[in-house]
């Protein structure tokens, strides 16, 4: 597909995909990369990084590096799982609202805008408080069912501009059913928007899960980057100077977020060439500098 080949040539996308791949590989091959188990006492409390423990130990003597690797699995799973759910709901509702118009559109838009205007994190917190200790699965489900609103808006406006195009009108005249049109004529033209929406949702889900767990609303028995933050905060890692305990999940989250964001910016640049930095402008600048011409 054209989008993919362009993506591969884009520097931002390459770096982003590389980061993502590294994280995924680390998560998948966790057992091979470390001898310890994530909830196994293998050292003294808050030992600094050393040969035995690459990233030191936590307050309870667990190996931080091991928890980092196994924790990646949960963060990635929740991120992509919830991200997928958010994107599917948002895209489907957005296409239906944008294509069908009329009452259907009004109803969907009304509810979407309402949800958008109720602050997201407080709502999540309140839900999580009523649910009690939320496992990653429960968190993913809550995220999926409360955060699709943004995707609906974006997909809807793109759908509305596509539906005026000739190929859609000719499909309508040929008598294609509305569902077929939405699925096979409109949707293929929304790929870059859906892609950006998906990656954005994954970032959002990863961040929200970590945040909810940091605040103590998650299940303390899980091993995830958010729980690592929670444990570090509760064991006063900052005040005792156990920087590895708290910085490890911080940097892990930042890196994953960065990789995903780079991919997103790359897709945006490809879809909207005007936003690009570098490329032909560099060549142009070179010509001007050499005195080959002027503006």
């Amino acid at each position, binding site marked *: 597909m054209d989008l993919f080949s362009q993506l591969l040539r884009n520097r931002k996308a390459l770096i982003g995909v590389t980061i993502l791949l590294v994280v995924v590989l680390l998560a998948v091959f966790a057992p091979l990369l470390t001898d310890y188990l994530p909830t196994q006492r293998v050292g003294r409390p808050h030992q600094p990084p050393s040969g035995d423990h690459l990233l030191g130990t936590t307050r309870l003597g667990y190996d931080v590096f091991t928890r980092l690797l196994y924790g990646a699995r949960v963060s990635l799973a929740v991120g992509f799982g919830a991200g997928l759910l958010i994107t599917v709901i948002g895209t489907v509702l957005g296409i239906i609202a944008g294509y069908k118009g009329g009452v259907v559109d009004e109803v969907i838009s009304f509810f979407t805008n309402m949800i958008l205007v109720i602050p997201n994190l407080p709502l999540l917190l309140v839900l999580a408080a009523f649910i009690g200790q939320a496992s990653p699965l429960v968190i993913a489900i809550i995220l999926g069912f409360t955060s699709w609103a943004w995707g609906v808006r974006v997909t809807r406006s793109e759908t509305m501009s596509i539906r005026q195009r000739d190929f859609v009108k000719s499909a309508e005249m040929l008598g294609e059913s509305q569902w077929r049109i939405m699925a096979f004529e409109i949707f293929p033209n929304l790929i870059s928007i859906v892609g950006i929406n998906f990656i954005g949702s994954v970032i959002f889900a990863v961040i929200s899960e970590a945040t909810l767990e940091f605040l103590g609303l998650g299940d303390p028995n899980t091993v995830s980057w958010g729980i690592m933050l929670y444990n570090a905060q509760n064991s006063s890692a900052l005040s005792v100077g156990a920087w590895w305990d708290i910085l490890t999940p911080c940097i892990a989250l930042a890196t994953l977020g960065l990789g995903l964001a780079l991919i997103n910016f790359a897709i945006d640049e490809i879809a909207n060439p005007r936003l690009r930095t570098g490329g032909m402008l560099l060549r142009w600048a070179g010509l001007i500098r050499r005195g080959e*011409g002027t503006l």
Partner: protein
Amino acid sequence: MSDPLLSIRNLSIDYVGATSDFHAVKNVSFDIARGEFFGLAGESGCGKSTIAFAISRLHRPPAIIRKGSQIVLDGRDVLTLDDAELRQLRWREVAMVFQSAMNSLNPVLTIEDQFHDVLKTHTGMSRSAARARAAELLALVDIAADRLSAYPHQLSGGMRQRVVIAMCLALNPKLLIMDEPTTALDVVVQREILERIHKLRQELGFAVLFITHDLALMVQVSDRIGIMLEGELVEVNDAQAIYRSPQHDYTRKLWASMPRLGGERAGEGAAS
């Protein structure tokens, strides 16, 4: 031509790409005399607007005007001017009416503000003096002075077109460039605009560079016409000569492709 107003020599303009360049204008040369109505015709993409933009140096990257080009306006080569001189020259010596004048006006400023900023920048006029001058200019195009406090979206398309023309004449430029000014309008309005321009030319004496793809229209209003094809200027001549005895193959094809209701076919006055 002796003492032309605008003298273009060897103008070459490229659009720089990632690996190769698109040659939009290839080595074009022509003159426009003072007070002359010069038409530049050709199909879409032939480079005529690119030339128009170059005269005031309005291009942005990745456009590049190649070394060796010359655009001499009233004795000065526009391509050698620095930023300050360029800004002084713009609107004072040459003004431009864009393709869809409806979108040429800034949506968030009033009409008066948009007259004021150009008048203040170039002449340092006070607010009240600028307002008076703006009212004067609007009168030239038959628009009431009370429209000064309006925003562009409050005026009709035709009115906006006329406001832009009035704005162009604010500093009495020597050259007025009109880039497809009538394409988006119907024929009746087209006629009105052209007649208005004709009258104003008689009063104020400016030259016009008129860009369009409508050759038949151009022949009726222009003194001289240039025909462009794929970046090259293939023929330049008096309007009547272009009409009766086109020299270049492409010009003949242009005429031949036009449906006629009756009478003499264009270009058949002389041997083909």
